[in-house]
């Protein structure tokens, strides 16, 4: 039995440190006694107090969370289907349509979706933003799921079929558990992309729709105050909480064995 070598531990911990040093700064600065996110002055809780009085920011955070959950859920389902399809069948159009949204500059996609929605006379709002997010998240999920399936043993699924399982049963009880780590990885990526998206959201949001990135980027020319650090810290904690709660409630949902 192999224990990971000490070098592996060192390298991995270095990577985690790289990931977390900026985050520690983000959280610590949410208590900074200075309007600017530039250097430490002193400790105060005022930003959290201001945040809870700031209806706009809270509503923006709520919108971002909602869109994020919906967009990642739908794009995970569609992306998994796409990943499975690309891995199993010879397809020509789907791989291109899956990869291109990742490659295409966001601003082009944002403007073109806006023009499209206007042509369709679709009211801009949370729905239009969610539809846009799903479009660019599908690709990320599909690629991860396909990578997971690459080289995977077909004999398991064939055996299930031979035993008389329907395609759905095969998928549900054989394939899905096998690809679950890929599906989860994809879902996490999709959620991350959605709650942080600015450019596409800017163009597809309606006249009263604000998401957190929109709110924050509009502050960029004046000052991105530590209120933003506070709301980011809280949003992270809330999302973490949601996931822990969800995994406790359905422990089998995330099982991969």
């Amino acid at each position, binding site marked *: 039995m192999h224990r*990971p070598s000490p070098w592996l531990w060192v390298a991995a911990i270095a*990577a985690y440190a790289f990931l977390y040093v900026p985050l520690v*700064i983000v959280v610590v600065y949410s208590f900074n006694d200075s309007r600017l996110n530039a250097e430490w002055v002193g400790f105060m809780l005022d930003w959290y107090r201001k945040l809870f009085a700031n209806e706009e920011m809270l509503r923006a955070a709520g919108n971002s969370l909602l869109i994020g959950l919906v967009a990642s859920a739908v794009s995970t389902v569609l992306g998994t289907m796409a990943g499975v399809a690309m891995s199993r069948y010879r397809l020509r159009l789907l791989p291109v349509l899956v990869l291109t949204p990742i490659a295409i500059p966001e601003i082009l996609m944002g403007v073109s979706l806006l023009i499209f929605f206007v042509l369709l006379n679709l009211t801009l709002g949370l729905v239009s933003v969610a539809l846009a997010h799903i479009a660019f998240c599908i690709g990320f999920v599909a690629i991860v799921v*396909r*990578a997971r399936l690459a080289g995977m043993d077909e004999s398991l699924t064939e055996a299930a079929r031979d035993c008389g399982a329907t395609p759905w049963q095969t998928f549900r009880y054989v394939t899905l558990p096998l690809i679950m780590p890929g599906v989860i990885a994809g879902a996490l990526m999709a959620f991350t992309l959605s709650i942080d998206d600015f450019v596409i959201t800017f163009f597809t949001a309606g006249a009263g729709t604000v998401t957190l*990135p929109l709110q924050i980027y509009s502050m960029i020319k004046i000052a991105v105050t530590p209120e933003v650090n506070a709301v980011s810290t809280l949003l992270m904690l809330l999302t973490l909480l949601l996931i822990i709660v969800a995994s406790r409630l359905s422990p089998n949902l995330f099982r991969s064995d």
Partner: protein
Amino acid sequence: MTSSRTAGSRGKWLVSGPPLLYLIIFFAIPTLIMLAASFRTPGEFGGLAPLVDETGKLDVNLESYARFFTEPVYFEVFLKSVVYALVTTFCCLLLAYPLATLIARSAQRYRDLLLLLVILPFWSNFLIRVYAWMIILGPNAALAKGVNGVLGLVGIAPVPLLFSSFAVLVCLVYVHLPFMVLPLYANLEKHDQALLDAAQDLGANAWQRFWRITFPLSLPGVYAGAALVFIPALGIFAIPDILGGPNDTLIGNLIKQQFLETRDWPFGSVLSIVLTLAALALAGIAAWVAKRHADAGGTIDA
């Protein structure tokens, strides 16, 4: 058997249909509208000129394409972006591999938590994470003082860490790291430990086990991660905008300028098409190389 073949093709449409449909409606069609714009002229005050002008002539031309191919500066910027994206991808791979391996090899009950810990920082807003890097790399912060102190000992003039290509690259790697870790993890997680045990029993040392077994098996994950880092990194503009130096203009910045300063949608569309095609082409080449490598027996059948 005919029934399994029709069942097979029906299965194919059932599985690939919904995502295909969604992407056609909400991606392909809107994008085609803007692709068509690359053949038009910019509108007088923004947007596009009318499709049919007063004389009844259809507004279709290749001006914007000609501009891209006749002025070398755009290609230079494009090349620089490719270099930045390649460096970012490579650095992400170096950092992500040990991390993904550690998570994949950990006990079952810790895996999800460790994975979550990787992505947790990225649920805070992008902008303040970049601002955090500005604090870390600032001239009065510990890191800069330390580095310049060392350089000073060797007699080299102090070098700015912020507003430089270094800052841009560090931030690019930072922002894209999870997109390399997650696909790698998804792939490494399924590697059979028994293979490595057998190899060790046969006398292979750690490096040989890695290079001849683990790495080739992980190639699909590596390529997936590389695609999910390289392709978005190619088009990024926010990071050079916020902490780049005066020479750090990338193709993403140029494209943004076309839409938001010059109001030249056709040219922005042309640059976007070139970027997208190049990204897809490079991804295609990488996939082709991967396939040839696999076919030539470079991988071990699990």
